[in-house]
């Protein structure tokens, strides 16, 4: 009787099992490099390439299991790199939120002649490979006397950002126009409408833009490599590079450094996951 009432229940269960199996495989493939990175960070250098590979590092069973972490943190200037990365990434992410919220709002809500063409132009910049722009960028920064400072890594983020502008334009456009009209009738200026009404409502999208910009800048290697020379200005990716040279590589230290450098991103994402998802889904504001 029940089977007749729910003829598809058996098929649904099979579909669910297949779905979970596929997701499990995907999870293993995705997570394996991270797990291997974590395992290697607890190994001794001689065990890194040992065959068959060991999934239980020996260092864990000694009286100094965090030896690799202690070394990079105390003897390798990693604290400085970490602090520099945090500062540069935070400032650049703030810059992205500032620039793209203004741009996204203007493209979504203001009546500007030719704004759709301008928006297309901003989007096109996302498709220009960094290799094309990096040399002119370097020449500009050198001309400004900004080489070997954090400014080349921070200031451009305050000016433009194609992805953030696109995302925030869509988000602002999804918020009801009546809010702006009501505020305008009540005497708000265009900036007050942006600042007091729409910006607070775009919080999820702003958090999403901040997190994405922070991650991108945290992982950035090319620009710090090009613009930073002094050791005290180096960022985490440059610090990690120092563990690899032409003839040898300190794999265990590299992996320990990588684990440390990955942790902030994981923590930030976990704390802001709800907002980031809302930011991508769009402005379903209730009330």
């Amino acid at each position, binding site marked *: 009787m029940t089977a007749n009432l729910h003829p598809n229940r058996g098929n649904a269960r099979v579909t669910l099992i297949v779905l979970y199996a596929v997701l499990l495989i995907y999870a293993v493939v995705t997570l394996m490099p991270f797990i291997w990175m974590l395992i290697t960070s607890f190994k001794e250098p001689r065990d890194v390439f040992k065959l068959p590979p060991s999934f239980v590092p020996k260092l864990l069973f000694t009286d100094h299991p965090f030896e690799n972490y202690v070394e990079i943190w105390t003897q390798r200037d990693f604290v400085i790199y970490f602090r520099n990365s945090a500062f540069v990434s935070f400032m650049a992410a703030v810059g992205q939120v500032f620039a793209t919220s203004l741009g996204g709002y203007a493209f979504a809500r203001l009546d500007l002649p030719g704004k759709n063409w301008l928006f297309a132009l901003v989007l096109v910049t996302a498709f220009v490979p960094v290799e094309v722009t990096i040399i002119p960028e370097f020449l500009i920064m050198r001309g400004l006397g900004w080489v070997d400072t954090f400014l080349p890594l921070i200031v451009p983020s305050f000016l433009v950002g194609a992805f953030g502008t696109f995302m925030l334009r869509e988000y602002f456009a999804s918020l009801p126009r009546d*809010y702006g009209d009501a505020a*305008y009738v*009540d005497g708000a200026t265009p900036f007050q409408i942006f600042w007091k009404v729409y910006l607070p409502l775009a919080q999820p999208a702003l958090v999403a833009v901040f997190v994405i910009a922070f991650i991108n800048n945290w992982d950035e290697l090319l620009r710090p490599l090009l613009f930073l020379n002094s050791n005290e200005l180096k960022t985490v990716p440059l610090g990690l590079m120092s563990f690899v040279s032409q003839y040898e590589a300190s794999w265990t230290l590299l992996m320990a450094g990588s684990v440390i450098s990955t942790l902030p991103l994981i923590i930030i994402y976990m704390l802001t996951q709800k907002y980031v998802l809302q930011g991508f889904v769009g402005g379903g504001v209730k*009330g």
Partner: protein
Amino acid sequence: MATLSLHSIVKAFGKTDVIKDISLSVEDGEFVVFVGPSGCGKSTLLRIIAGLEDQTSGELRIDGQEVTGKEPIERGVAMVFQSYALYPHLTVFDNIAFPLRLKKNNKQEVKARVEAAAATLNLTDRLHHKPSELSGGQRQRVAIGRAIVRDPKLFLFDEPLSNLDASLRGAMRVELSELHQQLKTTMIYVTHDQVEAMTMADRIVVLNGGILEQFGTPMELYHNPQSRFVAGFIGQPGMNFIPATLIDMGAEQITAQFAGQATQNARVDAKGHSTGVSIDVGIRPDDLKLATDGAGFAVRVRVLERLGASTIVYGNLADDTPICAALDGLVKLQAGDQIALTVDPDAVHVFDTGGRALPRLAAPAL
């Protein structure tokens, strides 16, 4: 309080005119309702008055001052939106205080005025709630509070009750009418619901396709509609329109013949028309009675709606023209019955082929 006058207002979007040469004057303290079907231009006209849209041509005066090109705040208007447009991130207090804070009023004054508005609207115990925690009626009142706290010259309402359920809508209609009596401020109210228009308005503007069909008191519109459109739009259930031919014209009344050969007299002035022309005879369902003396026209009953005090009878004439009558609540009828209905010639409306009403000779004194 303020007067409002529109002179030859035209609004075009591209090549399409959505408002076509509308002129009207609203007196100080009046409650005027713009009513019409969807797309008739009533909301656009309201947005032009608010300053949210610019008219393509024409003059707009508030208190005699030309306000075209002026910001809404300079016009002294406040507006309540269909969606309420309450800011979801702010509390009720902050929503109502929003316009006052924009004007940089001091904190004590803001608090006093918000609390006074909240007391008027029975919202005092909701001041620290977010809009998402309120019922539809409470949200509506917050939106009204945000408007009245500014003490504007002119209130504009854009279909403010359309998101409420029927019973709450009825209660809010009464509240809004009381609010108007209390504030005595000029109010312009947009709705597609003729019941709202009839029950609340001092005067009603009926719009159709961007044209002003008629501007008058609810009773003028009901008893003396100037067009077939107004006659059909005002009144519930709607007026019956029966295609007919003008067969006789007297000084006091005319005689019309329906397609099914039945005839009906009407007390209208048919000057300028001649026998043999096509007309529409308009009869309000409330004016139809069961014929007891064999007079009237035959109707086959199709459906009955018993409302208690009255029974709405849906039927067809001999030529299949649909007809609706509002009869006594206790009338003993059932679907399929053959009945005869009659109407006093004084109550009959007649419309020419262009949809214009022929003047009634026996309309009630208003």
